[in-house]
Every structure is written in structure tokens, then in C-alpha cells.
């Protein structure tokens, strides 16, 4: 196995929420202690419901936000805010909403050249333009699109532009924050195929954030299931989809629609609500909604354990 391109150890991000006059300020633990490693050419998928810290993780890895604690090393460099500027060309991000992620006042050519203007000040204008045109071609757009404005494009085309922009600096890691969830199903597959093709060609490592398990199944190599800021299960895609071991993962998987009307449906309906991230229960965060929970579960949070297929549960399923 080659050296990991991204290594995160106990990565955490907390937000202070100012209280009003009478209430005390609280801490939102959006991300509390996540470990993972990413390999070049592989895709690590992060799944979980809204509010589980997926996007916070994406923002921390992309160096938009500083982790509250834990270490993140990218390409062998320990990341601190002072290193952000030099590491910009290693990690780039594609956002969920292609309608908000492109500057409406810039032509496509300018949008693509901007990362080069900032990070490669000695590059000539002609070289930059050549590179931008090459990239337009690479993501499957036509060269006459170079001079157009973002509003002239459809959602799928815009997402291609966003991918092209992210690739302008030759990054080694691409963070994909729900890159297809804002798109039509027919367009989704085109974008996913483009991403697969680019990964093979450029040996990119993908951090793929999603809540859509069918997309993850198609796309990922490894999967981390998150619940309330913690990783509850970390396994390869095949292991997870064949035999989820954490009750939450099992419940999550059971909700995925299948194109097989004959298949036996056993949907697990979870009771109750996601606990507030300002007030995470002392024990296992999932204990309140879990059908296997015991008093032991409510006492202390279980650690992620195991070798290849790691799970944070005292009563893992087999």
C-alpha cells in the first residue's frame, strides 16, 4: 500500500454558539474525533444524514476551516493555518450547488484562470489560457464555452465547469461535497462517469460526501458512516453494503430504494430524533434510537475498533 495522501487523526471541529442575554453560550460539536486515511486514486465516501458533520469535515479537509483539535496531514505535511496558502494546490473542492459556486460576473475563461493567477503568478497569460482551454476539453465542454457566462449553462454543465476549476491547479485530492445531489438523475450519472474517468486519468484521491447511498455504492472504495460528528463505521464499500455491522448503518442501508420489486423489504424505521449537537448524550450518540441499546451503551461512547471493518458499537451486528 502506498503512503496515504491525506491522514486525519482525531479531527474535531467545534463551534461556539453565542447565547442570548439569559442563556449561556453553547458548543456545537459538529465534528468530534474522526480518523481516516486517503490513498491516491481511491475514493473515500462519507455518508450520513443531514447535520452529521459531513460538510464540516469537507471544509476542514479543504482548509476553509481550522480544526479545533486533532491533526490533519496532507501529502506528508502537517496542516496548520500558516501552511494553508502553500497547500492550496493539493486540495480542491467541488460544491454541491453549481448555481452558487460560479461567480456570475466572470466568464468561464476567467473563472478557470483565477486559481492560476493567484497561485502561479509567473505563468504567462497565453499559458493560462491554453491550460484553461485544455481543461474545458477535459471535462467534456466545447471550446466556444470559454467566453460565456455561467448563467448560460445548465446545472450539469456548470458542475463540469466547477470540476474543471478544481482541477486547474493539478490537485492530488478532490473534495466532492455532494457534487450530484443538486442535479437531475440523468445528469448525475454523466457527472459521476466524468469523475471516475478523471480519477483514473489523473490518479486523484476523492473525498466523496454524500447522503445518497446508491451513488456511494456505485462510486466509492471505502465508506465512513457518520452519526452526529462521529464515525460509527469504517469499511470497504463491499463489506459495508454486504454486511453492515453498526445498527445505524443497517438502518441507513435499509432505506435505500432498490430496483427490484421482488426483493424482500425490511425497512428499519428509526424512532425518535437526532439528538442536538449542542447536547450530545454521554454514551453512544445513537443509543436513544437503537433497538439493541443497553445501559452499557448509555454509559460511555464506544470507540471505533476492529481491523479492516471498523465499527463503533458494543453490540455489532454480524
Amino acid at each position, binding site marked *: 500500500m502506498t503512503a496515504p495522501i491525506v491522514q486525519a487523526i482525531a479531527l474535531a471541529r467545534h463551534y461556539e454558539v453565542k447565547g442570548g442575554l439569559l442563556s449561556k453560550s453553547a458548543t456545537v460539536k459538529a465534528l468530534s474525533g474522526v480518523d481516516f486515511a486517503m490513498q491516491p486514486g481511491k475514493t473515500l465516501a462519507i455518508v450520513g444524514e443531514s447535520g452529521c458533520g459531513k460538510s464540516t469535515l469537507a471544509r476542514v479537509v479543504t482548509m*476553509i476551516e481550522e480544526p479545533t483539535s486533532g491533526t490533519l496531514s496532507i501529502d506528508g505535511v502537517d496542516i496548520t493555518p500558516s501552511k494553508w496558502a502553500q497547500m*492550496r494546490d493539493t486540495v480542491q473542492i467541488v460544491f454541491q450547488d453549481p448555481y452558487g*459556486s460560479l461567480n456570475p460576473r466572470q466568464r468561464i475563461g476567467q473563472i478557470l484562470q483565477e486559481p492560476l493567477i493567484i497561485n502561479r503568478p509567473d505563468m504567462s497569460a497565453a499559458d493560462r489560457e*491554453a491550460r484553461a482551454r*485544455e481543461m474545458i476539453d*477535459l471535462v467534456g465542454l466545447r471550446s466556444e464555452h470559454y467566453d*460565456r*457566462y455561467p448563467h448560460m449553462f445548465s446545472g450539469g454543465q456548470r458542475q463540469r465547469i466547477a470540476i474543471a*476549476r478544481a482541477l486547474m491547479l493539478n490537485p492530488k485530492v478532490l473534495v466532492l461535497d455532494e457534487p450530484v445531489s443538486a442535479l437531475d438523475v440523468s445528469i448525475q450519472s454523466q457527472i459521476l462517469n466524468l469523475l471516475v474517468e478523471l480519477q483514473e486519468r489523473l490518479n486523484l484521491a476523492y473525498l466523496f460526501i454524500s447522503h445518497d447511498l446508491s451513488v456511494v455504492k456505485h462510486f466509492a472504495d471505502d465508506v465512513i458512516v457518520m452519526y452526529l460528528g462521529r464515525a460509527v463505521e469504517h469499511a470497504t464499500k463491499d463489506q459495508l453494503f454486504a454486511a453492515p455491522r453498526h445498527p445505524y448503518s443497517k438502518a441507513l442501508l435499509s432505506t435505500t430504494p432498490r430496483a427490484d420489486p421482488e426483493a424482500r423489504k425490511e425497512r428499519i424505521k428509526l424512532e425518535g430524533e437526532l439528538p442536538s449537537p449542542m447536547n450530545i448524550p454521554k454514551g453512544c450518540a445513537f443509543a436513544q434510537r437503537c433497538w439493541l441499546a443497553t445501559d452499557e451503551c448509555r454509559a460511555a461512547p464506544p470507540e471505533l475498533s476492529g481491523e479492516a471493518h471498523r465499527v463503533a458499537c458494543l453490540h455489532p451486528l454480524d
Partner: protein
Amino acid sequence: MAELSATTPKTEDRPSALREFWFYFSENRGAVIGLYVFMAFVICAAFAPLLAPYDPTEQFRDHILQPPAWQEGGSWAFPLGTDPLGRDMLSRLIMGSRYSFFVGIVVVCVAVTGGVIIGLLSGFAPKWVDTLIMRVMDIILSFPSLLLALVLVAILGPSLTNAMIAIAIVFQPHYVRLTRASVLSERQKDYVTSARVAGAGKARLMFKTVLPNCLAPIIVQAALSFSTAILDAAALGFLGMGAQPPTPEWGTMLAEAREFILRAWWVVTFPGLAILVTVLAINLMGDGLRDALDPKLKRS
């Protein structure tokens, strides 16, 4: 990827930015008319000494309050008549365009530059700086604008320059608020985050990424306050705090002629019409400008 760059075809030359601007601007007929009127106004202002038949302060004592040429008692020597001191109205109006234009330009430039910069800073600054700036602006806004301008002129001393400074200060908060509001909403958007991920510094984010997206309302506001500035300068002149007689400033002219409104309609009507037409033309133009500068309204 080398083979890809070799096959990249060159696209046809894109139309120049100016020509593209004109294409979209000219679709709005009102804006084009406004532009022509405004251009006439600018030419008037630029070549005023050549266009004006007489010196605007020269008094023809034999021709006091002479009506316009087409009315009984008028003559073509004074096409728009004369004022109570026998000065030629046409010459005064033409010279007056200079002052109005000057007031509009200076006030708008000062107010927009200051307002946009303060607004951008306040949108990007830490919260306490933002609060400080906005409260100061609220205080300025809480005064009746003309009264504040009057107080400022009273402190600075009555003259056209001081009137302009006062009006610019009074207008400033509108731009600050407008800019800050747009900055705050634009800042949330993903394209700003992605510029940050691309490594853009604060200055680049402020002026290159965010500012162009906030310009449309500012341009419209600038066009509107160009005309308001002319009106306010006139009001200050009327109160003796702006341009001083015998300066042929339109507002001062109106004020001077106020007592003759029933006897000699032309002494108040023509300066008033000049202000009206100029203001209307500028407002129409501002509208077209916004349409042309907003890429969301463009078609492929």
C-alpha cells in the same frame, strides 16, 4: 494531456466589451434617449463659453424681464428672455449646466467611492468594527438630510464646494448600507468560498470577487443621487448656503426668480425644466446601465 491542447481550436473573436455593452444598452429605448439628452447636457457643459451668446453675468438694463422670443414683446436677441437684472436666460442656463454637472459628478464620485469602500470594509470586518460603522451611519441617516447638509455648510462656510462636500457626506450612508447589504448576502455564496479555496486574499475577495456582484444596485443609486445631488445643491443655493449669486447655478436661479413667478413665467420655468429634463435623462440612463451591466439579463 499534451495531445488535448494541440487540438484545441481557436474560437471566433468575441465582440469587444464596449460593443456588447452597447448592444444590450440600446435595447432599452428610454435609456438611449436618456443617454442622448445626457450627452447634449455634457456637451453644453463642456463648451458652455462657446455656446452661450452672452456673458451670463452681463446685465442689459434696457431689456429687464423680456419674454422669450416667440411671445409678444420678445426678440431673437434673447431667445429665452431675460431675468430681472436683464441677464440673458439662455446664456445663464448653458453656463448653469456646468455647475450642475460639476456638482453631480463630484458628489456622486466622493459618495460612491467612500461609501463603497466603507461598506466593503464593514461587510468583511470583525463584528465590532461592523457595528461601529453601521451605528455611525445610522446617526447620519437619522438627521433630515437637508438639515444636516445645512449644518455642515454653516460650519464650513457657504460656497458651492462646501455644499458639495456636505451633500456627499449626507449621501454616503446610503452607499455604505447598500454595499454592506449586498456584500453580506454575496459572501455567503459558494463562489466566494471557492475563491478562498483557490487562495484569494482579502483584497482580491473584496474588490474582484464580491464587489462586481454588488455593483448593479450601486449604479442605479448613483444615477439617482446624481440628480438628487443637483436638486440638493439647488436647495442649498436657494437657502443662500450653496452657490452664491451671481453664479448662474440652476437652483440659485430658481431661488432668485421666485418672486417673479406670476409676472414672468420664463424666469422660473426654464431653470426648472432644465433640472427636470437632466434628472429624468440621468434616471433613464441609470436604468439602462443596470440592464446592460447585469449579466443575468444577457442571452447567449
